[in-house]
Protein backbone atom coordinates (compact mmCIF):
# COMPACT_ATOMS: atom_id res chain seq x y z
CA UNK A 1 0.00 0.00 0.00
CA UNK A 2 2.74 2.36 1.07
CA UNK A 3 4.78 1.53 -1.99
CA UNK A 4 1.72 2.19 -4.15
CA UNK A 5 1.27 5.64 -2.65
CA UNK A 6 4.97 6.33 -3.12
CA UNK A 7 4.72 5.29 -6.73
CA UNK A 8 1.64 7.45 -7.27
CA UNK A 9 3.42 10.43 -5.73
CA UNK A 10 6.34 10.01 -8.09
CA UNK A 11 3.94 9.68 -10.99
CA UNK A 12 2.09 12.88 -10.08
CA UNK A 13 5.34 14.80 -9.70
CA UNK A 14 6.55 13.43 -13.02
CA UNK A 15 3.29 14.39 -14.67
CA UNK A 16 3.57 17.95 -13.40
CA UNK A 17 7.28 18.57 -13.73
CA UNK A 18 8.68 16.28 -16.41
CA UNK A 19 8.01 18.73 -19.27
CA UNK A 20 9.87 21.41 -17.35
CA UNK A 21 12.76 19.09 -16.62
CA UNK A 22 12.95 18.15 -20.29
CA UNK A 23 13.24 21.81 -21.25
CA UNK A 24 15.95 22.42 -18.68
CA UNK A 25 17.94 19.42 -19.88
CA UNK A 26 17.66 20.34 -23.53
CA UNK A 27 18.71 23.91 -22.87
CA UNK A 28 22.16 22.48 -22.11
CA UNK A 29 22.16 20.08 -25.05
CA UNK A 30 24.37 20.55 -28.12
CA UNK A 31 21.67 19.27 -30.46
CA UNK A 32 19.51 21.71 -32.47
CA UNK A 33 16.36 19.63 -32.05
CA UNK A 34 14.82 17.89 -29.08
CA UNK A 35 16.03 14.33 -29.49
CA UNK A 36 17.62 11.59 -27.48
CA UNK A 37 20.34 10.56 -26.93
CA UNK A 38 21.80 13.94 -26.05
CA UNK A 39 24.79 14.58 -28.31
CA UNK A 40 26.77 16.64 -25.77
CA UNK A 41 26.62 19.57 -23.35
CA UNK A 42 27.00 23.29 -24.04
CA UNK A 43 26.22 26.74 -22.72
CA UNK A 44 26.03 28.20 -26.23
CA UNK A 45 22.26 28.59 -26.18
CA UNK A 46 22.48 30.72 -23.11
CA UNK A 47 25.10 32.88 -24.77
CA UNK A 48 22.88 33.24 -27.83
CA UNK A 49 19.78 33.97 -25.78
CA UNK A 50 21.57 36.71 -23.83
CA UNK A 51 22.94 38.26 -27.02
CA UNK A 52 19.62 38.11 -28.87
CA UNK A 53 18.44 41.70 -29.45
CA UNK A 54 14.74 40.96 -29.54
CA UNK A 55 14.79 38.71 -26.50
CA UNK A 56 16.65 41.46 -24.65
CA UNK A 57 14.11 44.05 -25.74
CA UNK A 58 11.32 41.73 -24.60
CA UNK A 59 13.02 41.21 -21.25
CA UNK A 60 13.41 44.94 -20.78
CA UNK A 61 9.73 45.52 -21.61
CA UNK A 62 8.68 42.75 -19.25
CA UNK A 63 10.75 44.26 -16.46
CA UNK A 64 9.29 47.72 -17.13
CA UNK A 65 5.73 46.41 -17.13
CA UNK A 66 6.19 44.22 -14.04
CA UNK A 67 7.91 47.01 -12.09
CA UNK A 68 5.33 49.68 -12.80
CA UNK A 69 2.38 47.30 -12.38
CA UNK A 70 3.80 46.10 -9.06
CA UNK A 71 4.34 49.61 -7.75
CA UNK A 72 0.82 50.69 -8.69
CA UNK A 73 -0.68 47.50 -7.25
CA UNK A 74 1.39 47.87 -4.06
CA UNK A 75 0.18 51.38 -3.35
CA UNK A 76 -3.47 50.62 -4.13
CA UNK A 77 -3.42 47.21 -2.43
CA UNK A 78 -1.86 48.56 0.75
CA UNK A 79 -4.24 51.49 0.98
CA UNK A 80 -7.22 49.23 0.24
CA UNK A 81 -6.23 46.64 2.84
CA UNK A 82 -5.62 49.41 5.38
CA UNK A 83 -9.03 50.91 4.75
CA UNK A 84 -10.83 47.59 5.02
CA UNK A 85 -8.97 46.54 8.18
CA UNK A 86 -9.09 49.82 10.04
CA UNK A 87 -12.33 51.52 9.10
CA UNK A 88 -15.98 50.61 8.99
CA UNK A 89 -17.67 52.09 5.94
CA UNK A 90 -20.61 51.49 3.66
CA UNK A 91 -19.96 48.67 1.17
CA UNK A 92 -16.93 47.36 3.08
CA UNK A 93 -17.82 43.67 2.76
CA UNK A 94 -18.79 44.04 -0.89
CA UNK A 95 -15.51 45.82 -1.58
CA UNK A 96 -13.64 43.02 0.13
CA UNK A 97 -15.26 40.41 -2.08
CA UNK A 98 -15.07 42.49 -5.26
CA UNK A 99 -11.34 43.09 -4.81
CA UNK A 100 -10.56 39.42 -5.34
CA UNK A 101 -12.47 39.11 -8.62
CA UNK A 102 -9.55 40.08 -10.91
CA UNK A 103 -7.57 37.00 -9.80
CA UNK A 104 -10.52 34.69 -10.37
CA UNK A 105 -11.47 36.15 -13.75
CA UNK A 106 -9.97 34.35 -16.73
CA UNK A 107 -7.33 36.53 -18.38
CA UNK A 108 -9.28 36.53 -21.58
CA UNK A 109 -12.19 38.33 -19.93
CA UNK A 110 -9.94 40.91 -18.32
CA UNK A 111 -8.23 41.29 -21.67
CA UNK A 112 -11.40 41.76 -23.71
CA UNK A 113 -12.97 44.07 -21.13
CA UNK A 114 -9.97 46.33 -20.87
CA UNK A 115 -9.39 46.34 -24.62
CA UNK A 116 -12.98 47.48 -25.12
CA UNK A 117 -12.52 50.15 -22.49
CA UNK A 118 -9.27 51.47 -23.94
CA UNK A 119 -10.73 51.43 -27.44
CA UNK A 120 -13.79 53.32 -26.28
CA UNK A 121 -11.72 55.91 -24.46
CA UNK A 122 -9.20 56.25 -27.28
CA UNK A 123 -6.25 55.34 -25.13
CA UNK A 124 -3.57 54.01 -27.49
CA UNK A 125 -2.43 50.46 -26.76
CA UNK A 126 1.14 50.05 -25.63
CA UNK A 127 3.21 49.23 -22.59
CA UNK A 128 1.15 51.67 -20.52
CA UNK A 129 -2.09 49.77 -21.13
CA UNK A 130 -0.32 46.48 -20.38
CA UNK A 131 0.90 47.96 -17.09
CA UNK A 132 -2.64 48.98 -16.18
CA UNK A 133 -3.92 45.52 -17.07
CA UNK A 134 -1.28 43.81 -14.96
CA UNK A 135 -1.89 46.13 -12.05
CA UNK A 136 -5.51 44.95 -11.89
CA UNK A 137 -4.52 41.42 -10.95
CA UNK A 138 -1.48 42.50 -8.91
CA UNK A 139 -3.77 44.60 -6.74
CA UNK A 140 -5.76 41.71 -5.18
CA UNK A 141 -2.56 39.73 -4.59
CA UNK A 142 -1.09 42.56 -2.55
CA UNK A 143 -4.42 43.42 -0.98
CA UNK A 144 -4.77 39.86 0.34
CA UNK A 145 -1.28 39.53 1.85
CA UNK A 146 -1.55 42.98 3.40
CA UNK A 147 -5.03 42.41 4.80
CA UNK A 148 -3.83 39.16 6.38
CA UNK A 149 -0.83 40.88 7.96
CA UNK A 150 -2.79 43.90 9.15
CA UNK A 151 -5.41 41.71 10.80
CA UNK A 152 -2.67 40.10 12.91
CA UNK A 153 -1.09 43.44 13.79
CA UNK A 154 -2.15 44.58 17.26
CA UNK A 155 -4.02 47.86 17.12
CA UNK A 156 -2.15 49.00 20.20
CA UNK A 157 1.09 49.43 18.20
CA UNK A 158 -0.35 52.33 16.25
CA UNK A 159 -1.97 53.69 19.37
CA UNK A 160 1.33 53.48 21.21
CA UNK A 161 3.04 55.45 18.45
CA UNK A 162 0.40 58.17 18.56
CA UNK A 163 0.42 58.07 22.33
CA UNK A 164 4.15 58.76 22.41
CA UNK A 165 3.68 61.83 20.27
CA UNK A 166 4.07 60.57 16.70
CA UNK A 167 1.82 62.37 14.24
CA UNK A 168 0.04 60.14 11.69
CA UNK A 169 2.87 60.47 9.13
CA UNK A 170 5.58 59.67 11.69
CA UNK A 171 3.50 56.80 13.06
CA UNK A 172 3.22 55.32 9.58
CA UNK A 173 6.92 55.60 8.71
CA UNK A 174 8.32 54.60 12.07
CA UNK A 175 5.84 51.92 13.18
CA UNK A 176 3.18 51.12 10.57
CA UNK A 177 5.40 50.54 7.55
CA UNK A 178 8.14 48.56 9.37
CA UNK A 179 5.50 46.22 10.76
CA UNK A 180 4.03 45.50 7.32
CA UNK A 181 7.24 45.73 5.29
CA UNK A 182 7.81 42.00 4.90
CA UNK A 183 4.20 41.35 3.91
CA UNK A 184 4.41 44.14 1.37
CA UNK A 185 7.60 42.70 -0.10
CA UNK A 186 6.07 39.22 -0.23
CA UNK A 187 2.99 40.52 -2.02
CA UNK A 188 5.06 42.66 -4.36
CA UNK A 189 7.34 39.77 -5.34
CA UNK A 190 4.34 37.60 -6.09
CA UNK A 191 2.64 40.32 -8.12
CA UNK A 192 5.92 40.93 -9.97
CA UNK A 193 6.26 37.26 -10.85
CA UNK A 194 2.65 37.02 -12.02
CA UNK A 195 3.09 40.06 -14.22
CA UNK A 196 6.46 38.94 -15.52
CA UNK A 197 5.16 35.75 -17.12
CA UNK A 198 1.62 36.91 -17.91
CA UNK A 199 0.66 36.52 -21.55
CA UNK A 200 -3.10 36.51 -22.20
CA UNK A 201 -3.94 39.98 -20.92
CA UNK A 202 -0.75 41.21 -22.57
CA UNK A 203 -1.80 39.91 -25.99
CA UNK A 204 -4.96 41.99 -25.82
CA UNK A 205 -3.45 45.16 -24.47
CA UNK A 206 -0.05 45.56 -26.03
CA UNK A 207 0.74 47.63 -29.09
CA UNK A 208 3.79 46.71 -31.14
CA UNK A 209 6.07 46.17 -28.18
CA UNK A 210 6.52 42.60 -27.07
CA UNK A 211 7.11 41.43 -23.55
CA UNK A 212 9.41 38.47 -23.05
CA UNK A 213 6.65 35.82 -22.86
CA UNK A 214 5.05 37.32 -25.98
CA UNK A 215 8.38 37.20 -27.83
CA UNK A 216 8.85 33.57 -26.86
CA UNK A 217 5.33 32.72 -27.86
CA UNK A 218 5.80 34.44 -31.22
CA UNK A 219 8.92 32.40 -31.93
CA UNK A 220 7.27 29.14 -31.04
CA UNK A 221 5.38 29.31 -34.29
CA UNK A 222 8.68 28.50 -35.97
CA UNK A 223 9.34 25.60 -33.62
CA UNK A 224 11.04 25.11 -30.32
CA UNK A 225 14.62 26.33 -30.47
CA UNK A 226 17.29 25.54 -27.89
CA UNK A 227 17.68 29.28 -27.42
CA UNK A 228 14.11 29.46 -26.16
CA UNK A 229 14.79 26.54 -23.85
CA UNK A 230 17.65 28.51 -22.35
CA UNK A 231 15.52 31.63 -21.94
CA UNK A 232 12.69 29.68 -20.35
CA UNK A 233 15.10 28.03 -17.94
CA UNK A 234 16.38 31.43 -16.83
CA UNK A 235 12.84 32.72 -16.32
CA UNK A 236 11.97 29.58 -14.41
CA UNK A 237 14.94 30.02 -12.12
CA UNK A 238 14.25 33.69 -11.42
CA UNK A 239 10.48 33.29 -10.84
CA UNK A 240 11.15 30.25 -8.65
CA UNK A 241 13.53 32.26 -6.52
CA UNK A 242 11.07 35.15 -6.24
CA UNK A 243 8.22 32.86 -5.19
CA UNK A 244 10.34 31.10 -2.57
CA UNK A 245 11.51 34.46 -1.24
CA UNK A 246 7.95 35.70 -1.16
CA UNK A 247 6.80 32.69 0.86
CA UNK A 248 9.68 33.10 3.29
CA UNK A 249 8.60 36.70 3.91
CA UNK A 250 4.94 35.80 4.37
CA UNK A 251 5.83 33.33 7.08
CA UNK A 252 7.51 36.01 9.20
Amino acid at each position, binding site marked *: MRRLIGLLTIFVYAFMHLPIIVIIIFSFSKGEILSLPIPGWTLDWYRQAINDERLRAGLLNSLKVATVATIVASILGTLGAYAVQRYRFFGRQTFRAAVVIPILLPGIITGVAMLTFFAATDIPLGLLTVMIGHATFGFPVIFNTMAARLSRL*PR*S*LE*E*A*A*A*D*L*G*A*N*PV*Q*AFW*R*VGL*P*SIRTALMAGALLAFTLSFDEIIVTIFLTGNQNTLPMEIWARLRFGMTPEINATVTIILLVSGLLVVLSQRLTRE
Partner: protein
Amino acid sequence: MSEIAVHVENCSRVFGNVRAADRVSLTINRGEFFTILGASGSGKTTTLRMIAGFEEPDEGRIVVNGQDVTKLPAYKRDVHTVFQDYALFPHLSVSDNVAFALEVKGEPDRKRVEDALALVQLSGLADRRPAQLSGGQQQRVALARSIVDRPSVLLLDEPLSALDAKIREELRVELKRLQRETGITFIYVTHDQEEALTLSDRMAVMRRGKVLQVGSPIEVYEHPADLFVAEFIGKANFLSGTLLDRGRVQVGDRIVEATPAMAIAPGRAVKVMIRPENMQIQPTGLDGRIVQALYLGPATEYLVRSGDQMFRVLELRRRGAKPHAEGAAVALGWKADEALIYPA
Protein backbone atom coordinates in the same frame (compact mmCIF):
# COMPACT_ATOMS: atom_id res chain seq x y z
CA MET B 1 0.28 75.30 36.95
CA SER B 2 -2.85 74.25 38.63
CA GLU B 3 -2.93 71.53 41.25
CA ILE B 4 -5.35 69.53 39.17
CA ALA B 5 -3.68 67.28 36.60
CA VAL B 6 -6.72 65.78 34.93
CA HIS B 7 -10.33 66.74 35.03
CA VAL B 8 -12.89 64.41 33.51
CA GLU B 9 -16.14 66.33 33.31
CA ASN B 10 -19.39 64.45 32.78
CA CYS B 11 -17.94 62.27 30.05
CA SER B 12 -20.03 59.64 28.32
CA ARG B 13 -19.12 57.21 25.58
CA VAL B 14 -21.73 55.02 23.92
CA PHE B 15 -20.93 51.90 21.90
CA GLY B 16 -24.02 50.68 20.08
CA ASN B 17 -26.61 50.65 22.85
CA VAL B 18 -24.12 50.28 25.70
CA ARG B 19 -23.13 53.33 27.70
CA ALA B 20 -19.53 52.25 28.31
CA ALA B 21 -18.93 55.45 30.24
CA ASP B 22 -21.94 57.17 31.76
CA ARG B 23 -21.44 60.78 32.85
CA VAL B 24 -18.07 60.02 34.42
CA SER B 25 -16.58 62.83 36.48
CA LEU B 26 -13.17 62.55 38.08
CA THR B 27 -10.68 65.06 39.42
CA ILE B 28 -7.11 63.83 39.65
CA ASN B 29 -4.55 65.89 41.51
CA ARG B 30 -1.02 66.57 40.38
CA GLY B 31 1.48 63.95 41.52
CA GLU B 32 -1.23 61.60 42.67
CA PHE B 33 -1.36 57.82 42.27
CA PHE B 34 -4.98 57.48 41.24
CA THR B 35 -6.58 54.10 40.58
CA ILE B 36 -9.75 53.30 38.69
CA LEU B 37 -11.04 49.98 39.97
CA GLY B 38 -13.78 47.96 38.32
CA ALA B 39 -14.72 44.62 36.83
CA SER B 40 -14.52 44.12 33.06
CA GLY B 41 -17.17 46.18 31.34
CA SER B 42 -17.26 48.73 34.13
CA GLY B 43 -16.04 51.53 31.87
CA LYS B 44 -12.64 51.94 33.47
CA THR B 45 -10.66 51.31 30.29
CA THR B 46 -13.02 53.49 28.23
CA THR B 47 -12.44 56.31 30.70
CA LEU B 48 -8.69 55.85 30.41
CA ARG B 49 -8.85 55.80 26.62
CA MET B 50 -10.81 59.04 26.63
CA ILE B 51 -8.07 60.67 28.69
CA ALA B 52 -5.41 59.24 26.34
CA GLY B 53 -7.28 60.48 23.27
CA PHE B 54 -8.10 57.11 21.71
CA GLU B 55 -11.82 57.60 22.28
CA GLU B 56 -13.68 60.83 21.92
CA PRO B 57 -16.41 61.32 24.52
CA ASP B 58 -19.93 61.67 23.10
CA GLU B 59 -20.54 64.31 25.74
CA GLY B 60 -18.43 66.00 28.38
CA ARG B 61 -14.96 67.50 28.54
CA ILE B 62 -11.47 66.27 29.33
CA VAL B 63 -9.11 68.84 30.80
CA VAL B 64 -5.39 68.11 31.22
CA ASN B 65 -3.19 70.69 32.95
CA GLY B 66 -5.95 73.26 32.66
CA GLN B 67 -6.24 72.82 28.89
CA ASP B 68 -9.38 71.42 27.28
CA VAL B 69 -8.07 68.45 25.24
CA THR B 70 -11.44 66.88 24.38
CA LYS B 71 -10.89 67.40 20.64
CA LEU B 72 -7.11 67.08 20.69
CA PRO B 73 -5.67 63.96 19.00
CA ALA B 74 -3.67 61.55 21.19
CA TYR B 75 -0.29 62.60 19.77
CA LYS B 76 -0.75 66.20 20.87
CA ARG B 77 -1.52 65.36 24.50
CA ASP B 78 1.04 65.48 27.27
CA VAL B 79 -0.15 62.05 28.38
CA HIS B 80 1.42 58.63 27.80
CA THR B 81 -0.04 55.17 28.17
CA VAL B 82 1.36 51.85 29.35
CA PHE B 83 -0.65 49.21 27.52
CA GLN B 84 -1.87 45.93 28.87
CA ASP B 85 -0.08 44.05 26.06
CA TYR B 86 2.96 46.41 26.34
CA ALA B 87 2.69 47.34 22.63
CA LEU B 88 6.46 47.50 22.27
CA PHE B 89 7.63 48.10 18.70
CA PRO B 90 8.91 44.66 17.66
CA HIS B 91 11.30 45.98 14.99
CA LEU B 92 13.13 48.34 17.36
CA SER B 93 15.70 47.54 20.02
CA VAL B 94 14.95 48.24 23.67
CA SER B 95 16.80 51.54 23.62
CA ASP B 96 15.16 52.60 20.34
CA ASN B 97 11.78 51.80 21.82
CA VAL B 98 12.58 53.96 24.81
CA ALA B 99 13.96 56.73 22.59
CA PHE B 100 10.80 56.84 20.47
CA ALA B 101 9.04 59.74 22.18
CA LEU B 102 12.21 61.84 22.05
CA GLU B 103 12.90 60.93 18.41
CA VAL B 104 9.49 61.96 17.12
CA LYS B 105 9.84 65.27 18.94
CA GLY B 106 13.15 65.76 17.16
CA GLU B 107 15.19 65.89 20.35
CA PRO B 108 17.09 62.60 20.58
CA ASP B 109 18.97 62.31 23.85
CA ARG B 110 20.99 59.19 24.70
CA LYS B 111 21.44 60.32 28.29
CA ARG B 112 17.71 60.48 28.97
CA VAL B 113 17.20 57.06 27.38
CA GLU B 114 19.91 55.59 29.60
CA ASP B 115 18.43 57.28 32.66
CA ALA B 116 14.98 55.90 31.91
CA LEU B 117 16.39 52.40 31.45
CA ALA B 118 18.35 52.72 34.69
CA LEU B 119 15.19 53.83 36.47
CA VAL B 120 13.49 50.55 35.57
CA GLN B 121 16.72 48.57 36.13
CA LEU B 122 17.21 47.43 32.56
CA SER B 123 20.49 49.14 31.71
CA GLY B 124 22.14 45.93 30.50
CA LEU B 125 19.47 45.06 27.94
CA ALA B 126 19.49 48.19 25.77
CA ASP B 127 20.41 46.36 22.57
CA ARG B 128 17.97 43.48 22.84
CA ARG B 129 14.79 43.13 20.82
CA PRO B 130 11.49 43.05 22.75
CA ALA B 131 10.92 39.43 21.66
CA GLN B 132 14.07 38.41 23.54
CA LEU B 133 12.77 39.67 26.89
CA SER B 134 10.54 38.12 29.54
CA GLY B 135 7.09 39.51 30.20
CA GLY B 136 8.24 41.42 33.26
CA GLN B 137 11.18 42.92 31.38
CA GLN B 138 8.93 43.93 28.50
CA GLN B 139 6.66 45.72 30.91
CA ARG B 140 9.67 47.58 32.34
CA VAL B 141 10.64 48.66 28.82
CA ALA B 142 7.09 49.89 28.26
CA LEU B 143 7.37 51.90 31.50
CA ALA B 144 10.74 53.37 30.57
CA ARG B 145 9.43 54.25 27.11
CA SER B 146 6.52 56.20 28.51
CA ILE B 147 8.39 58.14 31.21
CA VAL B 148 11.49 59.02 29.18
CA ASP B 149 10.20 62.47 28.24
CA ARG B 150 8.44 62.98 31.57
CA PRO B 151 4.81 63.38 30.56
CA SER B 152 2.72 65.13 33.17
CA VAL B 153 0.30 62.20 33.29
CA LEU B 154 0.92 58.47 32.84
CA LEU B 155 -2.00 56.17 32.16
CA LEU B 156 -1.57 52.50 33.01
CA ASP B 157 -4.08 50.02 31.60
CA GLU B 158 -3.92 46.87 33.74
CA PRO B 159 -0.16 46.78 33.27
CA LEU B 160 0.41 43.80 35.55
CA SER B 161 -2.47 41.55 34.55
CA ALA B 162 -0.48 39.49 32.05
CA LEU B 163 2.29 38.63 34.52
CA ASP B 164 2.91 35.84 37.06
CA ALA B 165 1.94 36.49 40.66
CA LYS B 166 5.52 36.82 41.88
CA ILE B 167 6.65 39.26 39.18
CA ARG B 168 3.41 41.15 39.61
CA GLU B 169 4.18 41.79 43.24
CA GLU B 170 7.75 42.85 42.43
CA LEU B 171 6.59 45.29 39.77
CA ARG B 172 3.87 46.65 42.02
CA VAL B 173 6.46 47.82 44.51
CA GLU B 174 8.49 49.24 41.67
CA LEU B 175 5.56 51.13 40.18
CA LYS B 176 4.95 52.87 43.47
CA ARG B 177 8.66 53.77 43.75
CA LEU B 178 8.73 55.01 40.16
CA GLN B 179 5.73 57.21 40.76
CA ARG B 180 7.28 58.72 43.89
CA GLU B 181 10.66 59.30 42.23
CA THR B 182 9.33 60.87 39.03
CA GLY B 183 6.42 62.75 40.59
CA ILE B 184 4.37 61.96 37.47
CA THR B 185 0.61 61.72 37.99
CA PHE B 186 -0.33 58.05 37.58
CA ILE B 187 -3.81 56.97 36.55
CA TYR B 188 -3.93 53.25 36.99
CA VAL B 189 -6.71 51.01 35.78
CA THR B 190 -7.16 47.59 37.37
CA HIS B 191 -9.73 44.97 38.30
CA ASP B 192 -7.55 43.81 41.20
CA GLN B 193 -8.77 45.35 44.45
CA GLU B 194 -5.55 44.47 46.25
CA GLU B 195 -3.51 46.44 43.72
CA ALA B 196 -5.89 49.35 44.08
CA LEU B 197 -5.71 49.34 47.86
CA THR B 198 -1.93 49.00 48.10
CA LEU B 199 -0.94 51.43 45.34
CA SER B 200 -3.38 54.29 45.37
CA ASP B 201 -3.38 57.65 47.03
CA ARG B 202 -6.98 57.84 45.96
CA MET B 203 -9.16 55.51 43.98
CA ALA B 204 -12.44 55.44 42.06
CA VAL B 205 -14.72 52.42 41.93
CA MET B 206 -16.66 52.01 38.69
CA ARG B 207 -19.53 49.80 37.67
CA ARG B 208 -21.57 49.73 34.44
CA GLY B 209 -20.02 52.95 33.22
CA LYS B 210 -20.67 54.88 36.40
CA VAL B 211 -18.38 56.10 39.15
CA LEU B 212 -19.73 54.75 42.44
CA GLN B 213 -17.19 56.16 44.85
CA VAL B 214 -14.00 58.19 44.94
CA GLY B 215 -11.76 58.27 47.98
CA SER B 216 -8.62 57.08 49.68
CA PRO B 217 -8.26 53.28 50.03
CA ILE B 218 -9.08 53.64 53.75
CA GLU B 219 -12.24 55.62 53.04
CA VAL B 220 -13.39 53.23 50.35
CA TYR B 221 -12.66 50.13 52.40
CA GLU B 222 -14.00 51.36 55.70
CA HIS B 223 -16.84 53.49 54.43
CA PRO B 224 -17.98 52.00 51.14
CA ALA B 225 -20.53 54.17 49.37
CA ASP B 226 -22.96 51.35 48.79
CA LEU B 227 -23.44 47.61 49.13
CA PHE B 228 -21.82 46.89 45.76
CA VAL B 229 -18.61 48.68 46.71
CA ALA B 230 -18.66 46.96 50.12
CA GLU B 231 -18.82 43.57 48.50
CA PHE B 232 -16.47 44.37 45.61
CA ILE B 233 -13.65 45.55 47.82
CA GLY B 234 -12.62 43.09 50.46
CA LYS B 235 -14.97 40.61 52.04
CA ALA B 236 -18.15 41.52 53.87
CA ASN B 237 -20.91 39.96 55.97
CA PHE B 238 -24.47 41.14 55.62
CA LEU B 239 -27.49 41.05 57.90
CA SER B 240 -30.91 41.87 56.43
CA GLY B 241 -33.43 43.71 58.55
CA THR B 242 -35.57 46.78 59.07
CA LEU B 243 -34.33 50.10 60.38
CA LEU B 244 -36.07 50.97 63.65
CA ASP B 245 -34.50 54.31 64.31
CA ARG B 246 -31.07 55.81 64.03
CA GLY B 247 -28.57 53.05 64.87
CA ARG B 248 -30.94 50.18 65.63
CA VAL B 249 -31.96 47.47 63.20
CA GLN B 250 -34.51 44.71 63.66
CA VAL B 251 -32.92 41.50 62.35
CA GLY B 252 -35.31 38.58 62.78
CA ASP B 253 -36.23 38.65 66.44
CA ARG B 254 -33.06 40.44 67.49
CA ILE B 255 -32.24 44.11 67.64
CA VAL B 256 -28.79 44.93 66.29
CA GLU B 257 -26.87 48.13 66.95
CA ALA B 258 -25.05 49.62 64.01
CA THR B 259 -24.14 52.90 62.31
CA PRO B 260 -26.06 54.28 59.32
CA ALA B 261 -23.70 54.77 56.35
CA MET B 262 -26.02 57.52 55.07
CA ALA B 263 -29.35 59.12 55.86
CA ILE B 264 -32.03 56.41 55.78
CA ALA B 265 -35.66 56.75 56.78
CA PRO B 266 -36.77 54.50 59.67
CA GLY B 267 -38.96 51.57 58.63
CA ARG B 268 -36.96 50.89 55.46
CA ALA B 269 -35.48 47.52 54.61
CA VAL B 270 -31.75 47.68 55.22
CA LYS B 271 -28.60 45.59 55.23
CA VAL B 272 -25.96 45.75 57.92
CA MET B 273 -22.40 45.29 56.61
CA ILE B 274 -19.65 43.99 58.87
CA ARG B 275 -16.10 43.22 57.70
CA PRO B 276 -14.80 39.77 58.76
CA GLU B 277 -12.00 41.34 60.84
CA ASN B 278 -14.55 43.43 62.73
CA MET B 279 -16.47 40.39 63.88
CA GLN B 280 -15.35 38.76 67.08
CA ILE B 281 -15.93 35.37 68.60
CA GLN B 282 -17.05 36.12 72.11
CA PRO B 283 -19.02 34.56 75.03
CA THR B 284 -22.43 35.95 74.08
CA GLY B 285 -23.99 37.45 70.96
CA LEU B 286 -25.23 36.03 67.68
CA ASP B 287 -25.18 32.26 68.18
CA GLY B 288 -23.60 30.04 65.55
CA ARG B 289 -21.44 27.06 64.87
CA ILE B 290 -18.01 26.96 63.22
CA VAL B 291 -18.30 25.13 59.91
CA GLN B 292 -14.75 25.59 58.76
CA ALA B 293 -11.57 26.99 60.23
CA LEU B 294 -8.97 28.15 57.69
CA TYR B 295 -5.54 28.67 59.20
CA LEU B 296 -3.90 31.49 57.21
CA GLY B 297 -0.71 31.90 59.25
CA PRO B 298 -1.01 35.37 60.71
CA ALA B 299 -4.75 34.92 61.09
CA THR B 300 -7.47 32.30 61.09
CA GLU B 301 -10.63 32.64 59.03
CA TYR B 302 -13.75 30.97 60.37
CA LEU B 303 -16.88 30.20 58.44
CA VAL B 304 -19.69 30.38 60.99
CA ARG B 305 -23.24 29.25 60.34
CA SER B 306 -25.96 31.08 62.18
CA GLY B 307 -29.50 30.09 61.28
CA ASP B 308 -29.42 29.80 57.50
CA GLN B 309 -26.67 32.37 57.06
CA MET B 310 -22.91 32.09 56.76
CA PHE B 311 -20.51 34.57 58.29
CA ARG B 312 -16.82 35.07 57.76
CA VAL B 313 -14.83 35.92 60.84
CA LEU B 314 -11.17 36.82 60.62
CA GLU B 315 -9.26 36.49 63.85
CA LEU B 316 -5.64 37.58 64.18
CA ARG B 317 -3.42 34.98 65.80
CA ARG B 318 -2.74 35.84 69.40
CA ARG B 319 0.18 34.48 71.32
CA GLY B 320 -0.82 31.37 73.21
CA ALA B 321 -4.42 31.44 72.03
CA LYS B 322 -5.62 28.20 70.50
CA PRO B 323 -7.76 28.42 67.35
CA HIS B 324 -11.38 27.44 67.79
CA ALA B 325 -12.19 23.97 66.60
CA GLU B 326 -14.47 23.16 63.67
CA GLY B 327 -17.93 22.27 64.93
CA ALA B 328 -17.62 24.39 68.08
CA ALA B 329 -20.61 26.46 69.17
CA VAL B 330 -19.68 30.14 69.31
CA ALA B 331 -21.26 33.56 69.60
CA LEU B 332 -20.46 36.48 67.30
CA GLY B 333 -20.25 40.13 68.23
CA TRP B 334 -19.13 43.46 66.77
CA LYS B 335 -18.86 47.08 67.68
CA ALA B 336 -21.76 49.29 66.65
CA ASP B 337 -19.45 51.76 64.87
CA GLU B 338 -17.91 49.01 62.76
CA ALA B 339 -21.24 47.76 61.46
CA LEU B 340 -22.64 49.95 58.70
CA ILE B 341 -26.28 50.24 57.69
CA TYR B 342 -27.18 50.54 53.98
CA PRO B 343 -30.56 50.67 52.26
CA ALA B 344 -31.24 47.17 50.97
